[in-house]
């Protein structure tokens, strides 16, 4: 059975079980949950010159974008539950979740199916209904950033659904501490298209490319500790890591590590997160690189990303968020666009130490509990100029998000 057929089977099984559960006479409303969200956002880039024909390499998505999701969660027994989530975004419909949780007890849960493996803190909030800004922090950006073609997205575009299995659990230490862990094997990322792969091809993670020619799974783990100081304050520290190969020959590796910190004091939330991806490149064809290949430590690059944000409710309906985030990429630069196959060489504008810093001020107003208007202004500062000589951009988001 191919992976796609197995996935379809799992999906049908989950839906079938959910429906059967709903029809059973003894089933209660708590046994299943149906939820959804949708965000419509308009992105305006004031300069415009850096994004003349979005979407295209080196540009961004201007104008309207929509993100929508529907999710079914079903408790099938005291130990078995299932989740299915289908989302719609810039690249069409996508199966974000289709997994079973087989829970022995709080400290031991087995998750199998399609899901985003446990990594970092933001991915838990990646649904637009769960964060106050229209877009994601740069380390987790998936196509909304300016010059996305130059950077090939963020460090770990979120969400990142993969097929695999994960063991996770939670252990409570009295009433003041909570320890979470997760370890997993999953399909991981890949680049089966380029003749000389130099970076992950995130397009290959989308439908209909679930079958991978990379037979070695990626693996990873996450540890997090939450300390609670009563009901008004808590703090979480987390560390995550993922490792895998991404080429068909399983020779080129990538490793992603991250640390996260969140502090909540009454209604004020402070969050910060740092990620770095170490990406090995195929340097067998030095032609495609902007710089000559260094004989030592010349076959990889490192992409760092971080964000710090403070979220402060002003009233019950009005929230303010300030965020500073950035990317820093160090290492050689390929002149071949990721996923192009390698036929066309176009000089990359990135240099060996490329950086991007963004400052965001966001406002959110909830007309009702489940319907919120979002607006933000973003100042982008690059340490390299685009083809028109610009290194600073200003952009605006205005959107609305609803959930049920």
């Amino acid at each position, binding site marked *: 059975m191919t992976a796609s057929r197995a996935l379809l089977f799992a999906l049908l099984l989950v839906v079938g079980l959910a429906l059967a559960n709903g029809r059973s006479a003894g089933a209660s409303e708590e046994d299943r949950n149906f939820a959804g969200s949708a965000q419509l956002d308009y992105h305006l880039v004031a300069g415009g010159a850096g994004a003349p024909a979005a979407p295209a390499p080196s540009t961004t998505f201007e104008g309207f974008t929509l993100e929508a999701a529907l999710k079914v969660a079903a408790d099938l027994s005291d130990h078995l539950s299932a989740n299915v989530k289908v989302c719609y975004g810039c690249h069409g419909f996508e199966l974000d979740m289709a997994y079973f949780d087989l829970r022995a007890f709080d400290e031991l849960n087995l998750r199998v199916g399609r899901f985003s493996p446990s990594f970092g803190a933001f991915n838990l909030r990646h649904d637009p209904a769960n964060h106050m800004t229209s877009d994601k922090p740069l380390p987790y950006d998936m196509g909304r950033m300016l010059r996305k073609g130059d950077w090939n997205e963020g460090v770990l575009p979120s969400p990142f659904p993969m097929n695999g299995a994960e063991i996770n659990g939670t252990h409570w230490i009295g009433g003041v501490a909570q320890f979470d862990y997760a370890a997993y094997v999953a399909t991981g990322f890949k680049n089966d298209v380029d003749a000389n792969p130099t970076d992950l091809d995130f397009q290959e993670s989308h439908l209909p490319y679930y079958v991978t020619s990379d037979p070695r799974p990626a693996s990873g783990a996450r540890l997090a500790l939450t300390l609670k100081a009563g009901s008004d304050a808590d703090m979480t520290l987390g560390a995550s890591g993922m490792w895998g190969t991404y080429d068909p020959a399983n020779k080129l590796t990538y490793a992603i590590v991250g640390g996260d910190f969140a502090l909540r004091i009454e209604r004020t939330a402070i969050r910060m997160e740092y990620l770095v991806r170490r990406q090995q490149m195929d340097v067998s064809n030095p032609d495609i690189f902007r*710089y000559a290949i260094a004989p030592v430590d010349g076959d990889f690059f490192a992409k760092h990303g971080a964000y710090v944000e403070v979220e402060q409710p002003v009233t019950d309906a009005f929230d303010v968020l300030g965020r500073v985030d950035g990317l820093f990429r*160090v290492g050689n630069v390929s002149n071949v666009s990721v996923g192009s196959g390698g036929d066309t060489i176009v000089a990359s504008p990135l240099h060996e130490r490329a950086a991007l810093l963004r400052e965001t001020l966001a406002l959110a107003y909830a007309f009702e509990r489940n319907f919120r208007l979002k607006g933000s202004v973003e100042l982008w500062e690059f340490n390299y100029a685009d083809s028109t000589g610009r290194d600073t951009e200003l952009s605006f988001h205005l959107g609305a998000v609803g959930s049920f």
Partner: protein
Amino acid sequence: MRARPAIHCVVRAIAPALLVASAAGCDVLDPKVGLLQESCGVDAVAPGAASGEYGGAGTTTSSAYGASSGTSTSSTVTVCAPDAGGTCDECESQFCCTTRTACYEDPVCICADQALERCLKATAPGDDSGIDACWDAFEENGTVEAERVACEKTWCQGPCGVP
């Protein structure tokens, strides 16, 4: 605030660990690069802009470099012409137009080609090892260069002086 001692304990435990990890990770996350390969001052021919009499190309300068700085945006650049300027150029234009064009469309190869010419001019006639070194350096620069040399060896070894 019962959790305060626990928070202090965690911070004290993690801070040294982060310092050690960052120090140990410096080399792991600090890749090295060589010289900028696009520093020769010659722009590559824009892909698709090349044309000529041999193998589908039109006009070029008689020198090997059809596109000096700034000409990559011109509408048509000839890389393979009937009279390309010399016996090597003419032979390559006639029999190896594809690999020649590929090199001139590649920002790295076109600079490596200039480096090859400089290397050969700086090498004394009869210095076979020096000539070999020039061609080896060019060939090892990348697959585009290697394919160009392979074609020259097959069709134009004599006119181009390929070892």
